[in-house]
């Protein structure tokens, strides 16, 4: 990082935070602090939703994943547009009409208090863990660039995000997200252009795409079905749909984005924008990773991209031989790549096949040398199953990108972290206060709840920072985040499916169903090799199946037998209770009737 990089980075971050805080003036009531007074336009919500989902992990880990495994991760997003359509036609109008602060508040209106509490606890557990990972990723960036211990950088990142979120509330979060997404789009575009410009002069963009394809890095669609394969078109369409239904329909960190909308239409448009834009965006990010791979066909990549671990093994007796094998294999791969480009230019198919074969042999030798180096890391006291996937893009950025662009890319990663973390922490605080705290102290003043929300934000920020230390043990970050989510999302989704679609199922049946769903998911996690993308399907099916069975076997467990205390049981929000707490108003009572039959 040179002076210009620091100037770009600091200017970007300060302007984002300042703009967000400026737009959040007047967020001094609960309604404004947590839901922006329900005044947000669709484009702000759309970019906020996108920014909340696209954390720094998206840029650090996805590019690395594309480098080592190709672009097939994009299939994971194929279910997203389907999920958005379902949510737009079901959850969005219901949540808006119920005038809830959280998705789980709706569950008490539909079922009972214990179901709402269980759903809230499940959300708090899983989103709290994810929030830690979200902070860990950019802390990793600072650690690489500044040479600081990861613990210190984690603490710094967490403190920045928490202070900004505590001060601004959701309005600051949302308007900052808008700016952050603009910087992210700019940074991505500049990164791709820079990678292509850095390729050797004899290699055109068309050649680069051809080489990436020949190396198996443009495998965007895999049609083979395999339960244990995380990324194929079937797991993406079915498993992905369930995961995104859970994420956008039941996860407060997303639901809260579109609850801030002026109307149902504005909220729907914000989600549908993501349905259209998300897949091309992920494709674009993965494509950058593939181009970085092509770049490294001509410039020797380090044996390990994580410099600290490389330094750790350099003193070992086995290291020189491994490094020599790696360098020889790289030189052979480079020659094969050159031959491949020439054969491609000449249109000589036989020569293309021959050069491709030589290329693949050399690539296998490089992979073997890297695997040996990873083994040395473990033998030297490093992580078991060491993986440096998360360091690939960062290593490339800091070593090869020109001055100024490095600062911009780092700003992108910071912006993404701030947007994702602030959204997560804000939603965790909202659920803590709305679904937990105000039920214990239902008659406090509006100001009291705003203060409680700020303290809850502080608490969850500290929790996320503490958990961040555990993140590196979970493998590639992008996968880790989704694994954590998948352990809990299936049950939440099953609960909302019952709420929206099965009138006769009551609170007790749903409550037991959710416990059964969690049991099924954890059984699959610990005792089977089923890919995590299927956990949501499994969990949802277990919840719905169990609840229906209970309703069938014990009809008295139906909707009228639960401890739901009726439309007037909701605690007050003080002066805003008439409009915000839904069920306590006449409108809420009228609208609740059809849900309960």
């Amino acid at each position: 990082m040179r002076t210009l990089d620091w100037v770009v980075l600091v200017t970007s971050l300060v302007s984002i935070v300042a703009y967000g805080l400026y737009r959040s003036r007047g967020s001094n009531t609960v309604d404004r602090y947590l839901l922006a007074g329900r005044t947000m336009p669709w484009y702000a919500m759309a970019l906020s939703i996108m920014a909340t989902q696209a954390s720094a992990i998206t840029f650090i880990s996805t590019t690395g994943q594309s480098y080592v495994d190709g672009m097939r991760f994009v299939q994971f997003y194929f279910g997203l547009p389907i999920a958005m359509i379902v949510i737009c036609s079901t959850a969005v109008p219901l949540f808006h009409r119920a005038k809830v602060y959280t998705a789980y508040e709706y569950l008490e209106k539909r079922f009972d208090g214990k179901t709402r509490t269980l759903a809230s606890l499940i959300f708090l557990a899983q989103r709290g863990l994810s929030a830690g990972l979200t902070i860990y990723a950019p802390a990793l960036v600072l650690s690489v660039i500044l040479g600081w211990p990861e613990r210190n950088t984690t603490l710094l990142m967490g403190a920045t995000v928490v202070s900004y979120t505590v001060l601004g509330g959701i309005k600051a979060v949302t308007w900052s997200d808008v700016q952050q997404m603009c910087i992210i789009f700019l940074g991505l575009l500049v990164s791709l252009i820079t990678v292509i410009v850095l390729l050797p002069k004899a290699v055109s963009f068309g050649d680069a795409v051809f080489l990436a394809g020949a190396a198996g890095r443009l495998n965007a669609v895999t049609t083979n079905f395999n339960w244990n394969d995380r990324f194929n078109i079937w797991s993406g369409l079915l498993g992905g749909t369930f995961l995104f239904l859970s994420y956008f329909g039941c996860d407060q960190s997303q639901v809260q984005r579109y609850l801030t909308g002026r109307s149902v239409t504005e909220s729907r448009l914000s989600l549908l924008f993501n349905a259209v834009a998300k897949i091309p965006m992920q494709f674009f990010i993965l494509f950058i990773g593939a181009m970085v791979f092509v770049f490294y066909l001509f410039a020797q990549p380090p044996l390990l991209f994580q410099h600290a671990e490389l330094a750790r093994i350099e003193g070992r007796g086995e290291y020189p031989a491994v490094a020599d094998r790696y360098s020889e294999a790289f030189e052979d791969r480079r020659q094969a790549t050159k031959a491949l480009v020439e054969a491609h230019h000449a249109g000589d198919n036989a020569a293309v096949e021959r050069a491709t074969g030589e290329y693949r042999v050399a690539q296998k030798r490089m992979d073997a040398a890297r695997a040996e180096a990873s083994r040395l890391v473990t033998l030297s006291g490093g992580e078991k199953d060491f993986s440096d996937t998360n360091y690939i893009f960062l290593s490339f950025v800091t070593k090869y990108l020109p001055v100024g662009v490095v600062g911009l890319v780092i700003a992108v990663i910071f912006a993404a972290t701030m947007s994702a973390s602030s959204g997560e922490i804000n939603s965790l605080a909202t659920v803590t206060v709305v679904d937990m705290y105000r039920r214990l102290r239902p008659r406090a003043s509006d100001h009291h709840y705003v203060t409680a929300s700020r303290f809850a934000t502080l608490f969850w920020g500290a929790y996320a920072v503490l958990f961040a230390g555990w993140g590196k043990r979970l493998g590639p970050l992008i996968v880790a985040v989704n694994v954590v989510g998948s352990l809990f999302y299936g049950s939440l989704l099953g609960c909302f499916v019952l709420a929206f679609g099965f009138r006769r199922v009551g609170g007790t049946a749903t409550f037991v169903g959710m416990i059964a769903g969690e049991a099924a998911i954890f059984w699959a996690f610990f005792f089977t090799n089923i890919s995590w993308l299927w956990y949501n399907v499994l969990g949802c099916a277990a919840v719905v199946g169990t609840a229906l069975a209970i309703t069938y076997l014990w009809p008295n467990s139906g909707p009228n037998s639960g401890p739901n205390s009726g439309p007037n049981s909701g605690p007050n929000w003080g002066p805003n209770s008439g409009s915000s707490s839904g069920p306590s108003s006449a409108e809420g009572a009228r609208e609740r009737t059809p849900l309960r039959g």
Partner: protein
Amino acid sequence: MRSRLFNCHYVLMPPVPPDHDEPPPFLGTWRRVYMAILIYLGAIIAGAYLFTRAYR
């Protein structure tokens, strides 16, 4: 008993009142908007498949 179980399978989404279900700003109805997005998804998947085939 059987009929009671199937009773659970009714599609019981309460109809959204007309004043809440404003028409979208384009294509006239939400149903058409959703259909357009499904067609778009199909085109994206087909494009990604052809891309994979062309460069493998």
